[in-house]
């Protein structure tokens, strides 16, 4: 019972913060809401006995990646309204379509995995960290401690894991190419 209360409170808070992230006027405030959001998600993991994932969530997302977001956002001149940065070629309906597709996909994965079927391993390419998290949350009775997580990652999910790392490498090289003026 207590667990349910905590879960629903957290769920509402996380969703609320998610909305705050996209609706906040100042980009820095958005990022702050995102950080709190991630921390709450970490609490959710702790509730699922996935301490390792929780800690990694804080370490990698809250402590690392979002810091970089903040880094970039801070440099955006706040004198101009955000609309000024909008791409004139932006096509709204493509985005809506893509978002809808992703939503469908996620729902499909959840339905498939809770049905006891094989999780779609190839979806791992979607994002590096998505797969283990989804797995921990949804997997039946996997007490997600560090050792087991390692086993799972390096056996059944080896290929997605490697694909994800390749993706990250590509992203890193791309970032360097973009940022470096003279190579």
């Amino acid at each position: 019972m207590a667990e349910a209360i905590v879960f629903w409170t957290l769920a509402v808070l996380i969703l609320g913060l998610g909305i705050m992230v996209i609706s906040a006027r100042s980009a820095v405030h958005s990022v702050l809401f995102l950080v709190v959001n991630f921390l709450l998600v970490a609490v959710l993991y702790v509730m699922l006995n996935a301490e390792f994932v929780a800690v990694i969530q804080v370490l990698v997302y809250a402590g690392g990646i979002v810091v970089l977001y903040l880094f970039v956002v801070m440099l955006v001149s706040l004198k101009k309204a955000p609309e000024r940065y909008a791409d004139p070629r932006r096509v709204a309906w493509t985005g809506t379509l893509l978002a809808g597709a992703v939503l469908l996909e996620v729902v499909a994965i959840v339905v498939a995995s809770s049905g006891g079927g094989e999780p779609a391993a190839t979806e791992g390419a979607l994002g590096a960290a998505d797969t283990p998290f989804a797995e921990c949350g949804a997997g039946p009775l996997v007490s997600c401690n560090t050792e087991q997580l390692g086993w799972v990652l390096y056996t059944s999910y080896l290929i997605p894991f490697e694909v994800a790392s390749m993706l990250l490498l590509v992203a890193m090289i791309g970032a360097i190419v973009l940022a470096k003026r003279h190579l």
Partner: protein
Amino acid sequence: MTLEAPRTSATQFDTDELVINMGPQHPSTHGVLRVVLKLDGERVIDADCVIGYIHRGIEKLSENRDWTQIILLTDRMDYVAAATNNLGYCQTVEKLMQIEVPRRARYIRTVLAELQRIASHCLWLGTHAMDIGAMTVLLYAFREREFVLDLFEEFCGARLTYNAMRIGGLPLDIPPGWDRKVLSFCDLMEGKLNDYETLLTNNRIWLKRTRGVGVIGGDEAIGLGLCGPPLRGSGVPRDVRKDEPYAAYDELEFNVPLGTRGDTYDRYLIRMDEFRESIRLIRQAVEGIPEGPIMGKVPRLIKPPAGETYHAIESPKGELGYFIVSDGKSTNPYRFRVRPPSFCNLQGLKRLVTGHLVADVVALIGTIDIVLGEVDR
């Protein structure tokens, strides 16, 4: 048409240049220097010095004061090296009036000037190291500077603005036992110099922060009008004490330390060597002080004949020149001009900092060793 603009901004980030004001209130600008820095990230792409915050019109004031009253005003220019300022001015007037200064006075003047160089370099070392983050050196260097100030206090009663010389000689003879104290200070200072060098000279971080920072070649340094240690750091053998000897320098032996690379580290090494050369000079001069009067034959009313002259000495900061015009009638100089070494060295700052990082700016302000009282006058 509309497609063009976003494409350029996508391939080439439009990064804003950040303009920051370093000073006039900043812990590392050694006074009220203001440097307007244009930054690309942390890299300096342009710098502009704004000076004049403590311009007191010393030149204008001096043109309305008696010849003897001006000595006191020169104290207030480079206030960490007041004695050399006094010396430069007195010698210029002596040159205008063709006064012969007794040998004893010249020797004592040399001792005072070299003690002053040690005091000034102590202050430079402390603040320069502090700017780069080695704060202990600051306290050590100030501790030794206190000894010099004590010596000056014993000689003339003042610790900062000495008013220590007179046209034609010195106001006072050295107090008894003073020469021995000077010599024991020399011994002490030599030991302390080794302490400083232990902390800095081979320190990896110090080397990283100073090697290759603010490199300037000899010809360019000459063209920019650098003087003193910044010029010698670029390997130009220019020292007024050697080239145009004054006081007792032509009778004493000393070397002029020269750099090779012209970077901040070389300028640091040169000043450390100058400490040692100063000690050597002081020892020779103190031991060689002859007996005799301390004042030359000076008329009661100082009124140099009409004429003009430029006379330079080597102050701790570089070539300190006085250009004085006398109209031969009034009891004050018609034109009194100081060629301040800090001013001319500061001019090179823009050239030195361009392309370096913000952190190097403070190192470079430190390395050219400015005193704003002299820059602004």
